[in-house]
Each structure stands twice: as C-alpha cells, then as structure tokens.
C-alpha cells in the first residue's frame, strides 16, 4: 500500500496543527459557529444528536494492521469502544469530545491517517474497488490513480469551497464494484482500440434527494490527462454550479440543467486551455505504482480447502458466500462480515479491530480493505489458511456467511445517532434480519441487496438497493418508503417506488412479503433483481398492499 514520504507526512502534521489552532479559536469565541462549521467539516467533524461524530478517511478503503490497531486504540480511548464503517469506505467515531479531536487527529497522523475532506463542500475521499489489484477481471489496478487523485485533491486551493460535496470513484475491473455510475465523477478504466488503458469519464451520478445515474462525457481519457481533465470538470462546476439552493447544488443538477452536450463542450473547452500545463507524468505514475506491487505470494499450492469443506458444512457455506476468486492460483479474497445478527451494520468493537489487525498480519500480508457495503476484505489469503482463518473469524463474530445476501444490509446510523435523520434505520434492519435469519432461506434468496437510509440524504444508497428502504417523517412518526429494482453495478438503475409509505411496525413484514412473492414468481434460478426487472413492481405491490 502507499507509504507517506516526507511531504505527505509534513502536510498531515501541519493539518493537525491547523485544526488545533482552529478548535482553540472556536472555543475562545474568536471563530463563530458559522465560521468554524466548514473548517470542522473539512476535518470530518459533525456536531451530532448526542455528541460529535468524527469521520476518518480510509483512502480508497485500504488499511494496514498498524492503522487498525490505532483505530482500535482511538475507539477505546475516545469512543465507547466501537467504530462504524461507512458506505464510502471510511470509519466513524460517534462519541469523541470536541476538545479531544485535535489529539485524535494527531494520533491518526502517527500512522499516516487523517480526516481531511471527509465532509464539507469539497472533494471527498476517493473510493474504489475493494478487490483492486487481486480480482481476476481487472483491466488495471486503480489504486495508484486513486492515490494520485487523493494527493491532487488534498487542500486543493481552487476547489475547497465548491457549491456542494464532490465524490469521485475509480474502478479498474470489468465488474463495477465501486458504484462509479452514482458518483459526481466515475472513472472506469478501459482499453482503447490500440490496447492502451485509460479512463471512461462519467459525470453527474449521485444518490441522495435526487438520485441520478451518471453519464459518459468522455469514452477514453489518457492517463497523462487525468488531472487536467478532472480540473476542467471541477472548474466548470465551481464556476457554474448552483449556489442558490443546496438541494440543487450538486454537479448532477448542473449537468441536467445545462444538458450533456453543452456541459461536455464547456469541460472540453476548459480542458484544451489547461491540458499542456498539467500533465500527469508517466514518471509520477510509475513512482506511485511502486507502492502497489504484489506481495510475496507463495507459489506452491497445497491441498486446498475442499476436504475441510466436505467435512464441515458451516465452513463450506462460509467458503461459498464469503470468499471470492483471486487472480493468483491458490489464493482467495476473504470478506469479513460486519453484518452479524444484533449488531448495527458496519459497527465493529475495539477488540475486533485489534483481532482483525492481527489476523491480517498473519493471513493477508498485514492489509485490510473496507468495502462500500460496510464489510471488510482480506485480499490475499492462501487457500490452505482458509479453514484456520474461518475458525478465528468465527470466534470473534466476523464470519457470518451472508456476503451479498439479504442480511448483508447497508444501513446508515439513522435517527439513533445522526442529526439529519427523520427515522431510525438500525432497528428496521434488525427487524428484517430476524425474519430472514435462517441460513437455508438466506441461501435460497440468493444475491440480494437491501439498503436502508434514515432520511433522503440517502447515505445507505437506498435508491440503488434491490430493495431500498427510506425513512420519512410523517407528523412525528417514522414511516418508510420502499423501492424495488435498484442497482449500483454495471447495470446501474434506480429503484421504482412500490407505493405509499409503510409504518415502522409493518416494514419488516412488507419486506418478507416481497421476498415470498419473489420465491413464488422466479423462474429457473432467476435472481431477485432479474425477477423484478422481468415482472415490474406490480405483483409485489399487489401482495404488499393487499395486507394493509
């Protein structure tokens, strides 16, 4: 993974000093609430319902064991011994005291971490494929470009006060595991006719209040042009994006109101002017690539896990659901499920963080990745270690065999923690979980994505859930709007609204009815998503609302 050099480290250290001074000036009354807000947000600090929330950046989801130990220590010392992985591959602490935040940032800086631009109207932490560098369907490893974008966007002098937040995702594989079509900018690595790899550039995707699928404004961009093209898009957005209404301020609205042809023309016209001045040298690309070389893989394959799987059905289920093929023969990528029954999705205890760090050290070259579905990945596990690793994960509650299944729900903190939320999400997830927590049933339901957000800001990406659940406030009561048929993968689509909102007591039951209906109507192993796409929402609608 990327290791800081003296420049990276100095910048992060200076950032800590800066925030320490800003916090002191705020507490002394020198900075007003309004002046301090954007400054603290650009350091990931929200003032929340119960206590501040600090969002720490995990650039493109990659963490070392050492960093995990530090996060565990912070959870113990400053939070209630728990941390929360988010849908943008970051991690959040929910109970730090404002006065302690500069110290927390200083602790993070000792392990090359920070909270820079994890919130605010600026370029956010760049996200990517959690299987980057190891998946068999990769065109090129996206991580070096993510790191280059991280550095370019960090404290960008021109683009730190944008009309609204700005999210960039990069995918290097044929299967899009980075949800590039629902980001402000999605970069999909592609190969052109001459075999050169570059980027297809999508703009204007996004979830939240106005979910929109991004559109391609350039089918092929050479790598050396990456930064100048990003700068051109951002400049057009910074100058012409709407600032009169925060709900219309994302780039997707500018794109929609300008029209894709005119928008693209503006970007290209700007790009022509700056292209020669901001070349991304191949030398720099090579320098950063050297940080992402393959680990020292064992070449001799042992017996593999088949015999152990045959002897142990629980291991077999886990092996099937929670591990995935690797580009190196004899290796697999292993998902650690943060979706155990009774635990808020994405939550992890300090002791688990420490245990994961030790296991990563032992079984996966000391590295862990966070996924946008709020799970973790050990990217490089030898097949002969799988059974032992499974036993250890099982003993710390991180081997629930439900990756990509109905109980692997994406869920925001909701009303319990978040000051923006209109309704709770964790308790709804628990209700649903308890109704489908049977392994055979879960397996029978197949691949299923249920996403639950407690308000229309949509942090849990409910509009691209196969089943999306959105909490709304109706006269002080919690109601839920259901959508069906969304996806954030290559076949990205927005879910269709099922009908009137459903009250909290009946949401889990409605989901169960939807799943039952699917089982009755599917044809020859058809997935839930395909069934919804074939039949439309009508049969589901009839069944759900027949009960009410």
């Amino acid at each position: 993974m990327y290791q800081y050099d003296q420049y990276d480290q100095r910048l992060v250290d200076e950032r800590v000093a800066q925030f320490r001074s800003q916090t002191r000036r705020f507490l002394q009354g020198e900075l007003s609430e309004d002046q301090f807000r954007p400054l603290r947000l650009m350091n990931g600090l929200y003032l929340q319902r119960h206590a501040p929330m600090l969002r720490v950046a995990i650039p493109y989801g990659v963490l070392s064991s050492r960093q995990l130990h530090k996060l565990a220590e912070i959870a113990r010392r400053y939070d209630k011994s728990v941390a929360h992985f988010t849908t943008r591959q970051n991690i959040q602490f929910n109970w730090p005291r404002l006065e302690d935040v500069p110290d927390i940032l200083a602790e993070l800086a000792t392990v090359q971490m920070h909270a820079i631009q994890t919130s605010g109207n600026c370029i956010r932490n760049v996200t990517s494929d959690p299987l980057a560098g190891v998946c068999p369907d990769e065109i090129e490893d996206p991580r070096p470009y993510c790191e280059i974008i991280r550095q370019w966007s960090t404290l960008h002098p021109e683009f730190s006060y944008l009309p609204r937040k700005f999210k960039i995702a990069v995918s290097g594989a044929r299967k899009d595991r980075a949800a590039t079509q629902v980001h402000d900018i999605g970069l999909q690595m592609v190969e052109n006719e001459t075999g050169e790899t570059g980027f297809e550039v999508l703009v204007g995707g996004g979830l939240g209040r106005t979910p929109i699928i991004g559109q391609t404004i350039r089918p092929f961009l050479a790598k050396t042009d990456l930064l100048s093209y990003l700068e051109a898009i951002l400049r057009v957005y910074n100058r012409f994006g709407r600032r009169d209404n925060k709900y219309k301020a994302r780039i997707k609205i500018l794109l929609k109101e300008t029209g894709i042809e005119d928008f693209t023309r503006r970007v290209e016209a700007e790009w022509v002017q700056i292209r020669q001045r901001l070349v991304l040298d191949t030398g720099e690309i090579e320098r950063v690539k050297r940080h992402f070389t393959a680990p020292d893989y064992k070449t001799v394959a042992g017996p593999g896990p088949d015999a152990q799987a045959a002897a142990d059905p629980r291991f077999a289920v886990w092996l099937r659901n929670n591990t995935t093929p690797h580009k190196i023969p004899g290796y697999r990528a292993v998902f650690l499920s943060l979706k155990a029954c009774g635990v808020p999705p994405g939550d992890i205890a300090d002791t688990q963080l420490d245990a994961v760090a030790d296991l990563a050290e032992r079984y996966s070259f000391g590295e862990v990745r966070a996924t946008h579905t709020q799970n973790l990945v050990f990217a490089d596990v030898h097949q002969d270690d799988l059974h032992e690793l499974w036993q250890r994960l099982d003993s710390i509650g991180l081997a629930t065999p439900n990756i990509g299944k109905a109980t692997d729900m994406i869920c925001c903190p909701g009303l319990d923690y978040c000051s923006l939320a209109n309704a709770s999400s964790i308790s709804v997830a628990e209700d649903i979980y308890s109704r489908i927590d049977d392994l055979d049933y879960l397996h029978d339901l197949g691949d299923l994505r249920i996403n639950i957000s407690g308000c229309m800001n949509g942090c849990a990406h409910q509009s691209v859930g196969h089943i999306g659940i959105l909490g709304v406030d109706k006269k002080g009561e919690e109601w839920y709007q259901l959508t069906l048929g969304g996806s954030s993968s290559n076949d990205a689509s927005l879910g269709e609204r099922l009908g009137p909102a459903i009250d909290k007591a009946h949401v889990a039951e409605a989901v169960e009815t939807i799943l039952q209906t699917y089982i009755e109507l599917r044809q020859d192993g058809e997935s839930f998503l395909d069934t919804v796409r074939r039949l439309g929402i009508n049969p589901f609608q009839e069944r759900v609302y027949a009960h009410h």
Partner: protein
Amino acid sequence: MPIIKDGAIVTDTWHHLADDEPVSAAPCTVSLARWKREKSELAAHGGALGLRLSGDDRVEDFAGELDQFPLVVVEFPSMGDGRGFSIARLLRERYDYRGELRARGAFIPDQVFYLRRVGFNAFEFTYDANLQTALPLLNEFSVTYQAAADEPLPLYRRCAR
C-alpha cells in the same frame, strides 16, 4: 481600513464606489456593470481606477481590457462562495493579470492560504477580522501538492520524491 497586502498589514487607499456614487479624483473601484456602462466617463476621471468583480462575472468577456486596471477586486459575499477562487486563477494564469488582485468580503483568515495560492496578493475583510491572526496563515502549509497561480508545477515535478 487596514488590509493585508503582499504579506504585510497596510492602510488601504482605495475607495469602493457604489454604482450610483459620484466619481471623485481619489483612487476608486467600480463594479464591472458600471464600468461597461460608463467606460469613457470613467476613463476621463483622471484618478486611478480599479475593477470589482462578482462571482457571476465572466472573466472571458473582458480579459483583453484587464491591463488598464492596477487593481482588480473579487468579491466574496460569503466564506462558502468559492467562485472567486476560479476567477483568480483565470486572471493570473490564463489572462496573465499582474496588478493587485484583492479578495474582499466575508471570507475568514483561515482561507487566506488558499486565496494566496490561487493568485490573490491582497485581502480586505469587510468585517472586523483579526489581521494579526490572518498574517501567518498566508503560509500555513509548507507542502502543496498542486500547481496553482503561486506555483506553476505540481509537487511531483518540483521535488524528487
């Protein structure tokens, strides 16, 4: 009122004329709209003339005439309105404006590092800000990854990494 200019606190000698305020011989700035309307009268007034821009103004439309202004002021109606950052870079980097480029408005001392980087060399707060606090913040960071108006090359081309 004192302002920060070229890294020092100095007394401001300019007067910002409202659009309906009569022109005097003292150095003054006018809005782009007024300048477009009264070009010839303003040119005849004899004193130094500066131009004030808002975020809505399109630099491209009058770039050829920038040279005649010893001062260009970019207005920041709030600290969150970042359009002025792009305007400054265009003025400095694309249109090669060399005169005084001043940020004026409700921005805060904590933004002067960014403002300096995009090309501003003068800072006029329109409220009672602490200039002594702002002064060292001009160079708050010793590391800059990007090329901008202050630095033609990105870090990777400036330093052996």
